[in-house]
Structure formats: structure tokens, C-alpha cells
């Protein structure tokens, strides 16, 4: 049992990282918690399944879902958030309102029935280790998460674009002064965040499946991860995801009566003693 729990903690952490990396990026640069993030996750899942039903390969569908979400995310930033620039409260409320709209639109388009996402070919079945079984697909999710994490790290830390994003995160007005197109960065990062969420939506599909309400279930998880790990920090999002993965798995077994607060308690403690999060820097 403990072995299964340990492996599962890491795989859940992997999925949570895919979910929260985009959230963390957007929060870091634009300073707003994007409350549409759970909806992007769900919408990406629904779109991905629609592509799958058109006969597409799972991975192509996932990438295409990510691409579609990037376009949608970019449009949301350009057309809706941009006019409210500088007014964080209004922007947050807008993302909240948008999440309701997406939820009801999805209900109309994809009805309320839960959608089953088939496991991609070649990854069905279980990996057997002595008498223990573990689904191969979940192990693959860890691989995907690690790949994305490395890719994002390279992007942020090693490229010129990454340097501009970091400059924008640290001090947006000053970055603007030295000629960095911060507004364009906002659109780009928002699109990237939406794409990551949409990608995660389909990747998570084979074990979460997709159903109305998935959006509001995933959003708090992204929030917890980012608050725990620290805003502005991809490493924080990664570590936060793994911590939440372990807390969820072991917490439910060891302290079943605390099932409801097990995820929030550490967040509360971190907020009390280190409000910027484990890996966050002071603004």
C-alpha cells in the first residue's frame, strides 16, 4: 500500500504541476489570480475529446487542444483583460464571471454526462512490480510533467524571451521603460498559461474524466499549489505540486477524519509563517 501511495503521490504531483504551472506564470507576471484557470483545464479536456472523436491521435489531440486554448487565452487577454489593465480587482472578477460563462456553455455543448477519455494506445494496462499494480499511463504523466517543467525552465531561464518575462515579473514599469513590450508579454504568457491548462485537461482525462464541475474542483488545487510553492516561482509550483500530491495520498489514509482540511492546513501554516510561499521572493 505504501509503495502505491508513494508512486501515486508523484504522479498526482505531476498532473498538478501541469495544471498549476500556467496559473503560476500568469499570477507572477500579471499579478492576478486567473479564476478561469479551472475552466481552461475543463475546456481543454472537452476540446481534446472532441478532437479524439474526430479520429485524431491522443497526443495530436492534446497538442491541438493546447493550441486552441492558447488562441482563446490570447483573445481573452487582448479583448477582455486589456481594457481593464491596472485594475486587478476588476480583472479578477472578470475571470470569475468568465468561468461561469464557460461552465454553462460547456453544459450546452457537451451536455452534463461525464465524458470518458480513453487511455492513449500503448500505455494501457498496468506496470506490475511483485504483487503490486500501477497504471502505466500515470507513470507517463510524470514523464510529461518533467518534460514540460524542463522546457519551461529552459524558456524562462535561458532564453531572451524568458529574460524579458523575468524582467516583467520583477518590475513591469521599469521593464517597459527599457523597451520591453510588456503588454505583448502579458498576452503571450496568458496564452501559454491557458495552453498548459488545456493540455493538462486532456492529459488528466484518462483518470479524472471530464464532467461539469471539474473546473471548480481543479481551480482550488491550482491555488493551493501556487500559494504553497510561492508566486513567481516555477520551482515553487513543482515542489508545491509534489507536496500536495504526497499530502493528499498519505493524508487521506493516515488522517481520514481530516480529509477536508488536509490540503488547506499546510497552506494556512505557510501563509502564517512565510506569506510569500516556500520558494517565493518578497515583492
Amino acid at each position, binding site marked *: *500500500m505504501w509503495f*502505491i*501511495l508513494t508512486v*501515486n503521490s508523484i504522479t*498526482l504531483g505531476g498532473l498538478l504541476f501541469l495544471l498549476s504551472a500556467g496559473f503560476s506564470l500568469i499570477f507572477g507576471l500579471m499579478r492576478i489570480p486567473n479564476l478561469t484557470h479551472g475552466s481552461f483545464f475543463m475546456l481543454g479536456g472537452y476540446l481534446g475529446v472532441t478532437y479524439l472523436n474526430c479520429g485524431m491521435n491522443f497526443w495530436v489531440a492534446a497538442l491541438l487542444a493546447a493550441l486552441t486554448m492558447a488562441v482563446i487565452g490570447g483573445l481573452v487577454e487582448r479583448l477582455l483583460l486589456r481594457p481593464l489593465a491596472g485594475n486587478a480587482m476588476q480583472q479578477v472578477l472578470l475571470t470569475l464571471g468568465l468561468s461561469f460563462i464557460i*461552465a*454553462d456553455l460547456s*453544459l450546452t455543448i457537451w*451536455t*452534463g*454526462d*461525464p*465524458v*470518458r477519455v*480513453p487511455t492513449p494506445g500503448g500505455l494501457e494496462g*498496468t506496470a*506490475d512490480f511483485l504483487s503490486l*499494480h*500501477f*497504471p502505466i*499511463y500515470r507513470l507517463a504523466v510524470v514523464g510529461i510533467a518533467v518534460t514540460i517543467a524542463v522546457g519551461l525552465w529552459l524558456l524562462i531561464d535561458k532564453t531572451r524571451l524568458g529574460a524579458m518575462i523575468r524582467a516583467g515579473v520583477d518590475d513591469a514599469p521599469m521593464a517597459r521603460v527599457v523597451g520591453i513590450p510588456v503588454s505583448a508579454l502579458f498576452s503571450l504568457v496568458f496564452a501559454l498559461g491557458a495552453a498548459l491548462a488545456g493540455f493538462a485537461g486532456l492529459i488528466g482525462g*484518462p*483518470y*479524472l*474524466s471530464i*464532467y*461539469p*464541475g471539474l473546473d*471548480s*474542483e*481543479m481551480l482550488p*488545487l491550482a491555488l493551493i499549489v501556487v500559494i504553497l510553492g510561492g508566486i513567481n516561482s516555477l520551482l515553487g509550483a513543482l515542489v508545491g505540486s509534489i507536496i500536495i500530491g504526497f499530502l*493528499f*495520498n*498519505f493524508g*487521506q*489514509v493516515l488522517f*481520514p477524519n481530516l*480529509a*477536508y482540511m488536509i490540503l488547506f492546513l499546510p497552506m494556512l501554516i505557510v501563509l502564517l509563517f512565510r506569506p510569500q510561499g516556500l520558494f517565493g521572493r518578497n515583492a
Partner: protein
Amino acid sequence: MTKMLSRRAFLQGSALAGAAISADLSFAPAIAQTGAIRIGLLTIKSGPLAQAGLQVDQGLTAFLKEKASTINGRKVDIIVADTGGTPAGARSKAQELVEREKVDLILGPVTATEMLAISDYIRRARIPIITLGGAEDLTQRHLNPWLIRTCPSSAQTCHPMADFSAKELGFKRMATISDDFAFGHEQVGGFLRVFEDNGGKIVRKLWPPLITPDYTPYIAQIQNVDGVFMGFTGSNPVKFMRAYSELGVKKDIPLVGGWTTGDDALLKSLGDEALGVQTASIYTASLPNDSNKRFVAAVLKDYENLPGAYAAWAYVTLLCLEAALKTTGGDVSDKQVLIDALRGVSLQDSPCGNFHFDKYGNIVGDVFIRRIDRKDGKLVNTIVKTYPNVSQFWTYPEDQFLAQPVYSRDFPPAKNLEN
């Protein structure tokens, strides 16, 4: 005068803006208000629980199409109110239906918590209601004389499921896993009682929160038992069964479940992981009687999916109304006469088979144990055994049953829990 008008216009406007009342289900043009029977429908059109509301629509539509929107020659107007699935929403919409729309009776609401929230109001307003909310005490310790229930009480189908598990499947030791809210508690309570009264032992009770992204930590705790009873609702059975099968537990430890876990409408969301799972329900799409064949064909034709229990109960609800109107001679004005007639309904050929109501207003009908099989590439429920005339009290004497507390997370106490 103008004041009155503008106030009325405002009220209508606000109702529209909130999408509060829309008559999209009424096929009858509202020409003769006096002639039409006005049915208020408390349903869920938005939010995460909307799937149940969509199914209710399918059932009602099937009936109204079949009967050309009339019941006993009288036109039917259905006034739809969206509660959003929340108790507060149900309370205000119920009041709106009764006081502003002057409905003759109410169908719905869909969930138990909503029904509990409006029960007192219904009693005061003296309006007949046919509900789909399963909470045990609505027809037991907190009776509502204005209510009948066409769906089973939460534990009603779990009693025979436990009987079947102990006697036919020969399970001696079982674990239960269920959503941690009233419907889940009541289901497990009923299952535990009958299973242990038949010599079985429930050695583990697991209560994952209603919102649980991954069931693996719970499934990892299931071992050394003969079978598992699950009481999940909504989309949770889909998630749970997938994980249960993928973690390799299913091939060693078979699953049985409450009606929501093997509902016919859910089958299209399930795959091989659900094969062989046995569940108990008071409705099943595979029941081969004429009425049900007609009903299933109608829903398949219009919606391309098998009707689930909510659709069937919505349909049956209108059948009951039809039968009651035969008794009253088409009159709905005297509410006492109407509810008495409804309670007296007994049908032989319905999509649910035979049923009648007990003196508490709860359905007494056949419970089907069905197994999920694959036929022609699609998942279907196969009836394995039928328990006839199952009441909410199972085989227990009524007074003894009612003298005990209502089923809950800790009642009946599980004496055989192990760690």
C-alpha cells in the same frame, strides 16, 4: 395604474434576466389558462448537477410527446424553474411557483437537500408535490402529507443489494466506499444493516469527500475482503471504477453498488472497467415490458442515449398524475383530493414495472439487481434478479424501523471494523 404596470413589467423582466422561469417545456400554447393543468417543475438547468435536470427533461418530453401534451384530455402547462441545485434556490423557486405562477402541483426537486429545504413550505402551502429527492426521513420520521416519491428512498435499493451480496454472491467480509454526504451515509447505513443481519461483516467503511480528484489512496486501503459496495453519485462512479480497475483491484475483489453507480444513462461514460459490476435499482432500461420498451425507444430516438432512472421517474411521475386524474375526474382544484388520489395510485404497466405507494407516500416497487455487460459493442444492464414489492422498510416491521434513528454515517454502528 402606470405604477402597477411598470411594477409588473419589472417583475417579468427580472424573471427573464435571472432565467428564472421559462416555459421551454410546455408544448401547449397557453390559450385557455383555466383549462390547462399547471405543473411547476423544480429542476436543475445550470451548474454541476444539471445532468439530472437534463434527464428529467427527457422523461417529461417523452411523456408529453406520446400524449400530445394532454393528460386525460386536459392540456398540460409545465412551468420550469431552475434551482441551480441549491437548497436556497429551491426554496425561492418553490414559493415563486406556488404564489406567482399558481401551479396546481409541483414536480421535483431533484436532490434530497433541496426537498428538505422546501418541505416545511410545502406543508404550509398545502400543495401536492411529487419529488425525486431520496432523503429517508421525508417519508419516515419527518412525514410530509403533501408528498409522494416516485424514486426510492436512499437505502431502499441498498437493502436488496445487501441481501443479494450475502445470499447469492456469498460475500462474508465487505468494505463500503461512498460519497461523504447524506445520500451516501443513508445508502451505506441500509446496506450495512441488511448485510450484517444476514451474517456478513463490514470490515471497512471509507468516506471520500464528494469532491475527490483521485480515489487511489482509498482504493489502496481495500484488501482482504470478498467484495466492495460503492455508493457514489454524479460523475464519481466513473472516476472510481476506472481507478479501481486500473489499479488491478477489480479482478480480485468484485464491486456492487447503489442505483446511481450503474444507472443506464451513465453507461455511455463507462468502459471495460465497469463490466461485471452489479447494482440495484428500481428502474432499469433493460426491463422488457411494453411500457418500458416504448419509453426507451422514444428516448433513444430523440436523444440517442438510454434513459436513466431520473428520466424514467419523471415519466412515471406524469403517469401517476394521469392515473390520479382518472380518480378525481380530471379535477385538480381540491388539493386534498388530488394528493389522496396520487397516494392511491397503483400501476401495473409502467417503465418501472408494478408499483404503488405506501401510506407514507413512498414508492413500493420491484428492485432489479442488474449486471453491466457488453452487448454489440455497447454496455448494457442485464437483470440478474428481481426482488418484488420492495418497500422502504425492507422486511423489517415498520414501527420497529421507525423507532430507530435514521441511517447516518455512524448508524447502524459498524461492529466489525478492522484496521
